[in-house]
């Protein structure tokens, strides 16, 4: 048997030889040789099948032992790689602000359609906002793939399926949803249908959000955001204003607890929103903010070493400088101390303070507290301040009371926080903790910070900001009423009324800002639409709700320690001393 195999085994003998050989040997050798041939064939068969089984065995070992994980993991997830959902955004307490949900998008393959007209009519009936002619155009095009509508509701999907038309297909996609509604739209921004961030945090953090994974925690407190939105909306309605902006900031960490720009829009209604609604007034819009800038002027003056709160400046008569005249809204017609200039909001006094400290020092100080460049924060909608190229005497004087320089309200927050804490901390829209809170740059001396606390408080106790006061919370602040420019003139009837306030002034932590754009006097305001009438109550109302919300116990208004830390003795020229 083995010999026979040896003879026949060389497999490289061409097969075509075999029949001829067999034919030649058959008659000569007889039954014995045919047995040998059968045996040899059996051996070949055995060898072939052994090799085949070996291959199967090896493949089995490979499939079960070496590729086991890679195959099992994909079961139940057809269609290749699983879709990565865009990461959620939450507020600082975990309340969801933005999330991604699966959605169906309708597309068509015109080549597969049997009856485009019927299909188009059916689609136009089933989907609101889709016009028959438009769909028909798409369905009769030469392309093999046309989008009909993105992100259908389950009901719409059902209706389209019920049409029973071939060639209409659904693509599983992800849609962005904002459960908190409209109020955060200028902070969060929005995405396009492909889930790419177009504004706000969605745009600024597009990379990390698109990568999916853990939610991103914003610094916004939705409750505070809601309070601010409500109070601002009330004021805008009550004074028939065109819009407004409001913010709440933790001055120590730079976290923005609320940032509202009105009018706003629902993120889902991006297509129908107006430019006005999409405009971000708190970080992109630059404005001549008016008297709130006296906060900066006062801090700069005290830092310059040229003045104390008791230094007097002549505010008896308007300043005439070239073609400009600087006048006061409520003229006192006498010399005013620095504290009085702040409390009575004297433009004349502020202009004289600016000249005393010098334009160069004023400019240096303002740049030091961040007013010469865009604010450094996450958002990409950032306004660049418009500052005079040539910081002349007259621009220095007008800047002292907030005209001739345009900054964003966010700049005002950052700068005011610096004068009240001494530290310049970049504002953020993301939650910070002890590790991520930046050290900040010390820009104002502790002595000036202490005096600023007192004039802030005195303005609310005795000055223009009375209606921002909340008993027990020691609110301090500064009003501002700016006339808006129209062409090259200021318009007395188009104002920007604002108030910037902080509390509690013995150790201020929260900074609250409200700005109302073009308020008109209403029945209750006796013809006024100034910061003290329009914006100060907004700040007061926000603080009255924010304090209890954060569990801050109201202090005794007569607490001697707090009074000592916030009171201010104001000397008039007549040597009357008034204490606030």
């Amino acid at each position: 048997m083995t010999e026979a195999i040896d003879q026949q085994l060389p497999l490289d003998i061409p097969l075509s030889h075999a029949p001829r050989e067999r034919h030649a040997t058959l008659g000569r050798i007889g039954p014995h040789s045919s047995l040998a041939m059968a045996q040899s064939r059996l051996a070949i068969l055995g060898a072939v099948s052994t090799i085949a089984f070996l291959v199967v065995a090896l493949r089995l070992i490979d499939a079960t032992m070496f590729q086991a994980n890679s195959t099992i993991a994909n079961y139940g997830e057809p269609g290749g790689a699983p879709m990565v959902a865009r990461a959620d955004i939450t507020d600082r307490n975990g309340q969801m602000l933005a999330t991604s949900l699966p959605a169906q998008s309708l597309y068509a393959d015109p080549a597969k359609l049997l009856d485009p007209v019927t299909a188009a009519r059916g689609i136009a009936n089933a989907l609101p906002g889709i016009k028959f002619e438009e769909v028909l155009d798409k369905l009769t095009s030469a392309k093999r793939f046309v989008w009909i509508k993105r992100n259908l509701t389950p009901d719409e999907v059902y209706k389209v399926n019920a049409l029973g038309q071939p060639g209409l297909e659904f693509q599983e996609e992800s849609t962005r949803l904002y459960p908190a509604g409209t109020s955060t739209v200028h902070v969060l921004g929005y995405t396009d249908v492909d889930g790419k961030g177009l504004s706000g945090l969605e745009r600024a953090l597009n990379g990390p959000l698109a990568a999916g994974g853990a939610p991103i925690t914003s610094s916004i407190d939705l409750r505070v955001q809601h309070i601010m939105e409500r109070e601002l909306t009330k004021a805008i309605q009550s004074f028939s204003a065109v819009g407004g902006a409001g913010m709440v900031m933790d001055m120590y960490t730079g976290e923005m607890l609320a940032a509202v720009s009105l009018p706003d829009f629902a993120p889902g209604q991006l297509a129908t929103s107006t430019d006005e609604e999409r405009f971000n007034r708190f970080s992109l819009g630059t404005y001549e903010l008016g008297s709130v800038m006296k906060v900066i002027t006062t801090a700069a003056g005290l830092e310059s070493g040229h003045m104390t709160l008791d230094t007097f400046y002549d505010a008896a008569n308007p300043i005439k400088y070239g073609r400009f005249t600087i006048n006061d809204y409520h003229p006192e017609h006498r010399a005013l101390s620095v504290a009085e200039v702040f409390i009575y909001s004297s433009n004349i006094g502020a202009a004289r303070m600016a000249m005393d400290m010098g334009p160069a020092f004023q400019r240096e100080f303002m740049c030091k507290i961040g007013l010469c460049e865009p604010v450094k924060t996450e958002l990409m909608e950032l306004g660049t301040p418009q500052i005079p190229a040539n910081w002349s005497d007259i621009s220095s004087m007008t800047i002292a009371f907030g005209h001739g320089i345009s900054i964003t309200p966010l700049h005002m927050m950052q700068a005011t926080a610096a004068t009240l804490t001494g530290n310049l901390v970049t504002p953020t829209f993301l939650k910070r903790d002890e590790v991520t809170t930046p050290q900040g740059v010390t820009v104002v001396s502790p002595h000036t910070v202490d005096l600023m606390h007192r004039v802030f408080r005195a303005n609310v106790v005795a000055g223009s900001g009375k209606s921002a006061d909340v008993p027990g919370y020691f609110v301090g602040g500064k009003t501002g009423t700016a006339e808006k420019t129209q062409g090259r003139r200021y318009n007395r009837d188009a104002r920007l009324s604002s108030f910037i306030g902080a509390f509690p002034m013995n150790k201020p932590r929260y900074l609250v800002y409200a700005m109302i754009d073009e308020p008109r006097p209403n029945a209750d305001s006796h013809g006024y639409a100034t910061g003290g009438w329009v914006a100060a109550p907004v700040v007061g109302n926000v603080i009255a709700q924010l304090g209890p919300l954060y569990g801050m116990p109201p202090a005794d208004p007569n607490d001697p320690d707090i009074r000592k830390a916030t009171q201010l003795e104001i000397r008039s020229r007549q040597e009357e001393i008034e204490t606030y």
Partner: protein
Amino acid sequence: MNRRFVLVAALALMAGAMVLNTSLKTRVQEDRLAQINREIASEQERIRVLTAEWHSLKSPGRIEALTRRYIKDMNTIKPVQIASLADIPDRLPEPETPAPTLAQADTKTETVSKPVQLASAAKPATRSTAPAPAPATPARATARPAQTIVASAKPAAPKPVATTTASATIDDSASDQVASLINQQSAPTAPKDEISFIIERDSQPRQPDVVTASFADDR
């Protein structure tokens, strides 16, 4: 050799049958696994949808609108409504008041002892959850659901100078309602109208929404 061949063939057949069986079983298990994975994915999607809906339902704007609509007398908390425990004056009950309630108050009760102006009419509370036990004696005739304590205690003070001690053992949510009924702002002190509340947060599990109120009437 024949026998060996048969043996090997039988073994091969058996092995083949076992492999076939195993592979069929595997197929079934794989199908099940795929099915379960699909279910998990779909459940996770539903959880995402429900989470989004929940967050939309509890957004402050919606809660506020609902509050305005259904809780008529609830206003925004004013700073004056916040008080620390130290601000609450210690008001010891009259000597003849039973001691046990006091002892309880020391251990695990929250004592809101505050002069309260009584509501003028004995109108029922806005949201009474359950009726109190039926009045047993004429002296207890004024026992009402716990929420009506403020409203109904006045007729229970027959003597000119009387201190009514209402000891209401209620669950947490109800105690908040009671607390909200205490109008802290208006408190002209009329001695005969004084009520001392002892709100006891019971650690024992209780029947939900059942509120019992008992008046330890003056004697």
